[in-house]
């Protein structure tokens, strides 16, 4: 048990393409990434902007999103997505990925009755989780219907100005 607590100081930053960066001593000055010792400093300026200082160069940095252990950060205008894993959670991820059924199709349905104002995607388009795919006017509001998964649009069942009922099929997304 003590092992787990001890190992906690070692983390793995994992990108969506499964590139691994081993990080040691995350909360100290002597940060090690992939066994190389790096000297990186983080500071805020008087306007509340955050900068990283590395090899005497300043990089503008911002955390765009943090959800559980998933981060999206912006460094010099480029956004990076990654998760922070512990050695155990990384093992678990590898184990679960092996069991994952592939090529599953997700359907997007009307959450309430209304009128289609706009269809923002075409078959074949790549979408990300949370990306708007359809604008549905209902309850006098232009509701954004978002993709529940990362994937590719397979089929679109509705067109602009269609009137839809609750649970009508909007589109299919293959992930």
């Amino acid at each position, binding site marked *: *048990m*003590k092992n*787990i*607590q001890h190992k906690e100081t070692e983390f793995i930053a994992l990108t969506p393409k499964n590139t691994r960066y081993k990080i040691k001593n995350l909360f100290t000055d002597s940060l090690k990434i992939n066994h190389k010792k790096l000297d990186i400093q983080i500071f805020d300026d008087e306007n509340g902007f955050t900068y990283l200082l590395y090899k005497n160069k300043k990089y503008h940095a911002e955390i765009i999103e943090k959800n*559980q*252990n998933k981060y999206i950060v912006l460094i010099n205008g480029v956004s990076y997505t990654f998760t922070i*894993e*512990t050695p*155990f*959670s990384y*093992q*678990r*991820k590898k*184990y*679960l990925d092996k069991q994952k059924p592939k090529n599953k199709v997700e359907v997007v349905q009307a*959450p*309430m*009755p209304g009128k289609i104002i706009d269809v923002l995607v075409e078959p074949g388009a790549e979408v990300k989780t949370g990306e708007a795919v359809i604008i549905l*006017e*209902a*309850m*006098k*509001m*232009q*509701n*954004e219907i978002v993709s529940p998964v990362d994937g590719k649009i397979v089929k679109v069942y509705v067109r602009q100005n269609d009137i839809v009922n*609750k649970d009508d099929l909007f589109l299919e997304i293959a992930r």
Partner: protein
Amino acid sequence: MDINGKLYRKFLERNAAYEQQNGKDAAKKQHSKGKLTARERIELLFDAGTFDEIDAFTRTAPAESNFGKVVTAYGDGVIIGHGKIKGRTAFIYSQDFNVMGGSLGSVHASKIAKIQDMALKMGAPIIGIIDSGGARIQEGVASLAGYAGIFRRNVFSSGVIPQISVIMGPAAGGAVYSPSITDFVFMTNKTSHMFVTGPNVVKEVLNEDVSFDELGGAEVHMKKSGVANFVYEDEENTLRGVIKLLSYLPSNNMENPPAIEACDTNIEPAPQMLEIVPDDPNKPYDIKEVIRLLVDKDTFFEYAENYAQNIVVGFGRLKGRTIGIIANQPKVLAGTLDINSSTKAARFIRFCDSFNIPILTLEDVPGFLPGIDQEHNGIIRHGAKLLYAYADATVPKVTVILRKSYGGAYCVMNSKNLGGDFNFAWPTAEIAVMGPEGAVSILYRKELIESEDPAKLKKELAKRYREEIANPYVADEKGFIDEVIDPAVTRRKIIYAFEALENKHVTSPSRKHGNIPL
């Protein structure tokens, strides 16, 4: 005295045997399934070195016949004890899947009951980590009686100490009802399941093929059933979530929630607030942006974020003090109140009220969701739960109306006459019985039919309606709104309002209990 001497022999032997039982082999079994052991989970949850186990050496009750296999491991498949989480006492039981599949026998059950009784007596939170095959079949009715005893204690403790269930493996049959009574249910994605009857029975009885995950996986309970309030991708993050949740909660109903000293004391106006809500009332926006600007930096902790997303509910801090937040989400289902959002918010309000957590309501609601589906499934009685929960809550209650506030939904969302202590509105608020278009169609039906250009007339009338009726000033002049405020100073206003309400005291009429429309 000689610690290795004769007198201590049995003591040392037992300890060694128990170490062995919890050793590497046990860990290997769980790790190969992507799970941690019962003990590793405890170690991650409690501050290092603070956990003390009790009743470690209990033995499984002998079965009455030789039906099935009986194991002679220590502990009967559950670890109970107490320790400190961020310095505060908490009690725990953690089921051990390695001992008889974590199944619940009579000794197992009486251990859980013992720790439940202790937690209640001491007034400290109790956490149950569930990883169990269910009732132990060999022990028959004794294990069912054990479950019933646990449920009764769950109910007795409800509203006295926070009860948290963490599902980290199977929870089937009777095992699901204890978590459902507790205040919060955590689940770990992919490796935990909850159902009343499993896939095998479903197949046998209904001839339906369904997998464990499709029937009762974390994703189902987070998005569809609403059973799981917090879902995380792995066990370590799940336990971190429990620690974070506890940081917002008092240990019992006699205490106030803990305040953080080093906190965000900024009360400067936030002009960004004016840019979040669009001028066009038909355009949606993300209410979470408003919440994040109002509460202390990075303190918003959302509850059931993937269920009934048309209402956003969670904890936050104002100058270090815990508040509960209920907010309509115009981005989802236009922010309407429906069955699921009503019950979600109602249960959260009940929790806050039980544990002295003040409630902030952010309102932008066009009304209840119309439709056959909603009416036939009982939006009347489910909507009533939200109404009841608000009216019954005696903690400080503050409401801010950002934009729409129409009809029954106005009344329900903590309006002045329902018991709101401070009710503020932004200048963009529209407070009326119904929206402009609907209202003029009823009031000027005849004129609209006879008119040569009904669309133009309707537009004009709607404009007049907005100016004369659907605005915050009428409500303000009648006292239904305490103040129309500049959106930029909302944070300062609500902080001072809650400070003014700090010693709020309400006496209710004497009764056994009210009859909430369940």
